[in-house]
C-alpha cells in the first residue's frame, strides 16, 4: 500500500465500481485502470514474462510494460491490455496475468532464482535458440508446453468474441497524429483553411504533456487554452477528432491506419485515413534508467508519477525519490513536494545541475545528490528504499553506497521522440546528441513531424513548429492556414541531458521490462556475435513487446554501441514497422466474420433444393446440393442410389455455377481458335464442341463446352472455379494481345440458370416437358444446340454429357429457371426422375473418366490427360510453343489412369500416393497420386482417378494406394480411366 487519492486532478466526481481479481475497488470517472489501481494502493499488478518477477505500473501511457492485465471475462476478455490505456467503466472486471496463485505470491518466480544461480542458462539471451535445440522430439512434448506455462502472457479467451467491430474508410486533406499542444494547434490552424482535417490521439483526454501539469490556479489559463482549443476543433464541421484512436501505421499513398476504442454497441473501429498531408505530432516518451531492480513495482517514469498526481489525483506513494540524468524529472519532485508529499531525495547522475534546479530543491528542503546514481531498488515486493552511490568521474564505477528511504522511485533517462510514424514513410531516423535520442532526418514526402516528436520539447517552440507545418501543408493544397492563439505560458524544453545508459553496479538491470531482457543479455548477445541491432532484437526479443521498444530501444542500442566501441549513430536503430501498438484482430475482420466472411452465391433453384431436403455444400462461393437424402439414408446411401438411378432412368442436377461467357463479333471464331487448342472456326451454327485451353507455359488451364449460336456469336462455359479467371484472361487477350480482333466478351453467368438432365429417359422426359422441341436423334443429335421458348422463358438446350449417359443441359433465363426446373421434374415423374447432387455428379464423371479441377490442378499437360490428339496442327494457339518442351512430353510423366480396388469394398483415399511396395515407408518410390475417388454402383467397386508415372502403358498392373498418415494401404488395379461405356455409345443413343 503506497498509492492513494490526493486531490481531484482533472477527474470527474462520479464514483465507479470495478474489481481487480474479484476484489471490489473504487474509481472516479476518467480514471484509467492504472491510476485507479494505484489509488487503491495496489502495487503488484502482475508477474513478468520469463522470470515471474512482480510488476506494477511503470508509466501513464502506451509505453506501459509492467501493468498488463486482462480486461473483462469470458468471450469479452481482452488479454495483455495496458492498464494505463484502459478507462475504468462501471462494473469493469480486471484480472492480473501470469501469476499463480496470486500476483503477490507466485510459484513460478523460481525462474528468477534459477537465472540467478545458473547465469546464462535458463531464459537468458537467445534461450529460445539454445536451450531447446535438442532432441527435437522433446519440443512438442516438453519444451513448448513448459515454456508456454512458465513464460505465458494473458490467456486468450476460448470462446468467440461477442463484440462487434467496424471498419471505416476516411479521406482528409490534413491528418494530424497526436493531440498534444503541437497537434491541437496544427489541427486548429489547418482547419481554418476550410480543408478537411482529422486528428488522432490514443488517449481519452487530448492535451498530451499538458496533462502532466498541475490543475492549479497558476495553470488555469493554460488549462483553459487546452479546453478552448479542443472545443474549437470539435465545433468545426471540417474536423474529425478521434480520441482513443491509436494511429499504428502509415502505408503507401499516405494511408494511415488506426484502431479506435468506442463505447457502445461497437467495441472498436478500424479506421483507414487517406490523407494528402500528414503532420506528425506524436510527442516523446520518457525513457527509464537502467539500474538494479529497476523493474520493481513503484519504480516508474517521472512524467508518469507526475501525471498520476496532477491529472488523475493519485499520489503514487507517501515518500518519493527521484533519479535522473536530465532536468525534466525535477518538476515531478517539485510537484509532489508542493502537494505536501515528502520527497526524500533527488539523485542526479550529472555533476552540475542548473542553479534553478538546485535552488528549487533547497527551497523545498529536498536533499539533492549530484554525480550520484541509484544502484538498486530495494523491497520484498515493491520499493521500500533505494541504495544510492556516488558515480566516479569516468562513469565506470560507484562508491559510498548508502540507503535512502522511499516507497516510490520516479526516474528519467531522457526523452525519445516518437518517430515511428515518420519512419514508416521510408526514411531512417538519425541520432541527435543534444537530446540523446533519434529524430526524423529527412521528412518523407507530404510529411511534417513537429514538436517533441521532432525533438523539440519546448511548449511554445513546439507549437510554433506545428503552425509552420500547418501553414506549409495548407499552402501546398491551395489553402491558407489560420492564425491561432498560442498557449499563454511556456515550458522550457531543454533537458540538458548527460546520457547514463546503465549504472555500473551489479543486480538485475532490466532494459526491456515486459520481455525481461536485461542489460547483461545485451552484453551477452554482443559476446556471442549478435552485434547488429536487428540481430540483437531477434536474439533477445528486445523491443518486441507491447510497447514495441518505446522505452527499451535507445537504452539497448546504446549499451550495444558501448560494447562495440562505436557511436550510437553508427550502431543505428532497428527498422520501425507497423503496427506500433497492439491492435485487435477483430478490427481487421470488421463485420466479415462467420457466415459474413465471404458472400454466398445461390442458384435460382435454391428454394426448390431446400424443399426437396437437399444437403448443401459450398463449392467456391456457391451453395450447391451435395445430395438429396431420403429417409434414413447416409451420404453414401444417397449418392449410390442417385448414381444408379441416373444410369438406369433419369436424373436432374443444378449446374448453374458453371461460368458462362458470350463471345460476339466478326472475329469471334478466330479468337476462339487462338485460345482453345482445338478448332472452333469450323464449328457449325447450332453445334457445341468441347474445348481445352492452355496457359502460355503449355499447362492445361481450363476446359468447357462452347456452342455456336450464330456465325458471329458463341456461348462458352467454363468450370465453376475458373469462371472469374477465364473471363479476366479473355478480356486481357482482347485488350492487350490482340486489340485488332473485333470481339466482345461478356460474362452471362448470372443470366442463365442451368440444369443437366441425364439418363436413358432424358429424351422422353424433355420431350414431355417441352413438346415444341424435336428431341429426335435426327433433329437434335449429340453435340447439338437448340433455342426454344417455354412459358416466357428463353431456353438454350445443349445435347452434351458429363455423366456419359444420354444427357442435355438446359439453360433458362434466371428468373424462369425454377419454373423450367419444375416443368422438367413434373414431366419426369412418369420416368421416376430424381434430383442429384454434387456427389453423384462426381461419381458419374469419375466412372466416365472425365477430368475436373481435381485433375486439372495447374500441373498437368495435354499428354498427361490423354488429350494431345485434340490439339490442332493446323493453327497456332496459346501454349502451343511451350507444350512441346522435353519435360512436358516425357514418357515418364505421371499420366491419368483409372484405379480399381482389388477388394471392391475398400475405398481408395483421395490424396493417396501410388507405390509398388505393399507396405510403403518413408523414402518409398512415389510413382503418382490419387486425385478423385468414388464408389461405382455400375462396377460394384470403389474406383478412383489418379496420375501414375508412365501410366498409359501400365494398364493391368497391380499397385498400392498408400496413405501413411492414416496407415492405409490399398491394393489397386491400374485400368483405363474410362470405366463405363468406353466406346461412348450411350451419349449418342
Amino acid at each position: 500500500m503506497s498509492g492513494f487519492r490526493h486531490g481531484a486532478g482533472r477527474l470527474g466526481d462520479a464514483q465507479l465500481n470495478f474489481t481487480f481479481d474479484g476484489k471490489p475497488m473504487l474509481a472516479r470517472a476518467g480514471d484509467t485502470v492504472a491510476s485507479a489501481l494505484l489509488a487503491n494502493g495496489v502495487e503488484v499488478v502482475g508477474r513478468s514474462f520469463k522470470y515471474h518477477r512482480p510488476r506494477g505500473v511503470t508509466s501513464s501511457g502506451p509505453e506501459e510494460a509492467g501493468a498488463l492485465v486482462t480486461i473483462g471475462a469470458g468471450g469479452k476478455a481482452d488479454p495483455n491490455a495496458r492498464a494505463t490505456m484502459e478507462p475504468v467503466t462501471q462494473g469493469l472486471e480486471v484480472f492480473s496475468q501470469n501469476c499463480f496463485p496470486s500476483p503477490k505470491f507466485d510459484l513460478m518466480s523460481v525462474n528468477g532464482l534459477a537465472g540467478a544461480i545458473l547465469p546464462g542458462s535458463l531464459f537468458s539471451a537467445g534461450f529460445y535458440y539454445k536451450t531447446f535445440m535438442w532432441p527435437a522430439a522433446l519440443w512438442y512434448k516438453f519444451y513448448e508446453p513448459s515454456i508456454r506455462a512458465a513464460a505465458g502472457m494473458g490467456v486468450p479467451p476460448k470462446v468467440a468474441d461477442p463484440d462487434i467491430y467496424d471498419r471505416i474508410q476516411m479521406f482528409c486533406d490534413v491528418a494530424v497524429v497526436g493531440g498534444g499542444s503541437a497537434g491541437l494547434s496544427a489541427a486548429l490552424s489547418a482547419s481554418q483553411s476550410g480543408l478537411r482535417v482529422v486528428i488522432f490521439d490514443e488517449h481519452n483526454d487530448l492535451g498530451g504533456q499538458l496533462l502532466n501539469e498541475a490543475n492549479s490556479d497558476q495553470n488555469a489559463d493554460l488549462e483553459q487554452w487546452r479546453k478552448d482549443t479542443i472545443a474549437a476543433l470539435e465545433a468545426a464541421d471540417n474536423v474529425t477528432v478521434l480520441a482513443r484512436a491509436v494511429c499504428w501505421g502509415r502505408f503507401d499513398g499516405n494511408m494511415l491506419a488506426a484502431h479506435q476504442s468506442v463505447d457502445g454497441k461497437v467495441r472498436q473501429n478500424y479506421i483507414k485515413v487517406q490523407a494528402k498531408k500528414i503532420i506528425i505530432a506524436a510527442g516523446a516518451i520518457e525513457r527509464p534508467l537502467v539500474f538494479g531492480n529497476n523493474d520493481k513495482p513503484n519504480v516508474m517514469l517521472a512524467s508518469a508519477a507526475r501525471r498520476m498526481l496532477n491529472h488523475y489525483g493519485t499520489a503514487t506513494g507517501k515518500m518519493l525519490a527521484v533519479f535522473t540524468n536530465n532536468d525534466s524529472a525535477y518538476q515531478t519532485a517539485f510537484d509532489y513536494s508542493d502537494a505536501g508529499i515528502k520527497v526524500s531525495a533527488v539523485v542526479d547522475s550529472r555533476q552540475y545541475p542548473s542553479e534553478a534546479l538546485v535552488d528549487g530543491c533547497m527551497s523545498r528542503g529536498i536533499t539533492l545528490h549530484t554525480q550520484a546514481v541509484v544502484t538498486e531498488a530495494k523491497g520484498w515486493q515493491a520499493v521500500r528504499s533505494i541504495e544510492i552511490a556516488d558515480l566516479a568521474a569516468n562513469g565506470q564505477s560507484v562508491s559510498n553506497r548508502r540507503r535512502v528511504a522511499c516507497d516510490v522511485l520516479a526516474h528519467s533517462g531522457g526523452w525519445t521522440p516518437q518517430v515511428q510514424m515518420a519512419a514508416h514513410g521510408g526514411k531512417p531516423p538519425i541520432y541527435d546528441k543534444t537530446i540523446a535520442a533519434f529524430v526524423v532526418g529527412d521528412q518523407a514526402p507530404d510529411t511534417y513531424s513537429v514538436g517533441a516528436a521532432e525533438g523539440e520539447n519546448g511548449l511554445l517552440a513546439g507549437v510554433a513548429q506545428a503552425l509552420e507545418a500547418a501553414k506549409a501543408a495548407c499552402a501546398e493544397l491551395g489553402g491558407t492556414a489560420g492564425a491561432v492563439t498560442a498557449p499563454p505560458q511556456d515550458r522550457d524544453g531543454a533537458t540538458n541531458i548527460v546520457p547514463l545508459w546503465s549504472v555500473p553496479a551489479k543486480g538485475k538491470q532490466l532494459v526491456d521490462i515486459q520481455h525481461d531482457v536485461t542489460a547483461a543479455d545485451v552484453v551477452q548477445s554482443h559476446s556471442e556475435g549478435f552485434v547488429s541491432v536487428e540481430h540483437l532484437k531477434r536474439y533477445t526479443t528486445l523491443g518486441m513487446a507491447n510497447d514495441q521498444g518505446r522505452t527499451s530501444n535507445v537504452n539497448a542500442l546504446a549499451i550495444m554501441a558501448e560494447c562495440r566501441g562505436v557511436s550510437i549513430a553508427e550502431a543505428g536503430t532497428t527498422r520501425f514497422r507497423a503496427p506500433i501498438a497492439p491492435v485487435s484482430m477483430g478490427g481487421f475482420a470488421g463485420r466479415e466474420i462467420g457466415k459474413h466472411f465471404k458472400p454466398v452465391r445461390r442458384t435460382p433453384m435454391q428454394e426448390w433444393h431446400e424443399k426437396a431436403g437437399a444437403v448443401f455444400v459450398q463449392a467456391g462461393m456457391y451453395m450447391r446440393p451435395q445430395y438429396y437424402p431420403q429417409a434414413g439414408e447416409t451420404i453414401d446411401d444417397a449418392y449410390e442410389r442417385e448414381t444408379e438411378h441416373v444410369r438406369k432412368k433419369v436424373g436432374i442436377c443444378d449446374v448453374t455455377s458453371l461460368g458462362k461467357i458470350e463471345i460476339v463479333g466478326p472475329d469471334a471464331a478466330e479468337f476462339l481458335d487462338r485460345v482453345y487448342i482445338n478448332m472452333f472456326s469450323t464449328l457449325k451454327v447450332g453445334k457445341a464442341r468441347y474445348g481445352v485451353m492452355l496457359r502460355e507455359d503449355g499447362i492445361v488451364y481450363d476446359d468447357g463446352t462452347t456452342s455456336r449460336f450464330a456465325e458471329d456469336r458463341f456461348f462458352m462455359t467454363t468450370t465453376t472455379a475458373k469462371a472469374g479467371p477465364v473471363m479476366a484472361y479473355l478480356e486481357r487477350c482482347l485488350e492487350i494481345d490482340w486489340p485488332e480482333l473485333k470481339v466482345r466478351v461478356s460474362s452471362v453467368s448470372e443470366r442463365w440458370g442451368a440444369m443437366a438432365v441425364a439418363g436413358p429417359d432424358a429424351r422422353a422426359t424433355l420431350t414431355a416437358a417441352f413438346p415444341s422441341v424435336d428431341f429426335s436423334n435426327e433433329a437434335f443429335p449429340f453435340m447439338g444446340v437448340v433455342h426454344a421458348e417455354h412459358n416466357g422463358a428463353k431456353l438454350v438446350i445443349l445435347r452434351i454429357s458429363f455423366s456419359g449417359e444420354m444427357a442435355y443441359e438446359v439453360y433458362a433465363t434466371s428468373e424462369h429457371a425454377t419454373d423450367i426446373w419444375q416443368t422438367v421434374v413434373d414431366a419426369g415423374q412418369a420416368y421416376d426422375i430424381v434430383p442429384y447432387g454434387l456427389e453423384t455428379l462426381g461419381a458419374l464423371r469419375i466412372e466416365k473418366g472425365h477430368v475436373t479441377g481435381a485433375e486439372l490442378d495447374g500441373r498437368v499437360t495435354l499428354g498427361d490427360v490423354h488429350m494431345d490428339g485434340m490439339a490442332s496442327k493446323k493453327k497456332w494457339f496459346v501454349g502451343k510453343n511451350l507444350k512441346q518442351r522435353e519435360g512436358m512430353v516425357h514418357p515418364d510423366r505421371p499420366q491419368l489412369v483409372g484405379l480399381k480396388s482389388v477388394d471392391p469394398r475398400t475405398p481408395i483415399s483421395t490424396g493417396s500416393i501410388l507405390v509398388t511396395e505393399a507396405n510403403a515407408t518413408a523414402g518409398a518410390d512415389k510413382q503418382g497420386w490419387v486425385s478423385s475417388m468414388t464408389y461405382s454402383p455400375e462396377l460394384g467397386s470403389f474406383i478412383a482417378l489418379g496420375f501414375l508415372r508412365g501410366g498409359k502403358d501400365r494398364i493391368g498392373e497391380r499397385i498400392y494406394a498408400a496413405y501413411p498418415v492414416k496407415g492405409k494401404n490399398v491394393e489397386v488395379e491400374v485400368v483405363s480411366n474410362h470405366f463405363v461405356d468406353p466406346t461412348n455409345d450411350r451419349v449418342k443413343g
Partner: protein
Amino acid sequence: MIRINCPYCGEREHSEFTYGEDATRTTPDNDAPMEEWNKFVYERDNPAGEHIEYWHHAFGCRAWLKVQRNTITHDISWVGLPHENPEAAS
C-alpha cells in the same frame, strides 16, 4: 494503400484492381523458336524503381490498364490504356 487513377472511373483504391503482369515484354511471333518463348514466359526483370505493368480494374470497369509504378515507393506516376505509353502521354 496504392491508389490508381483509372482513365474510365477515376482514382480508386488498389483493392479494386488485380495486378496483371509485366507490361514491358514483347510477345514473340507465333512461330518464334521455343527458346524465345521460354524466355518470354519465364524471364522477368525485377527492377528497383520505375516499372510499367498491367493492372485489371476487376471490381470497376473491367478495363486492362497500363500503369507506371515505382517498385520502391509504390508511387503511381502514370496510368493509361494498354496501347499507350507514358512518354507519349506526357
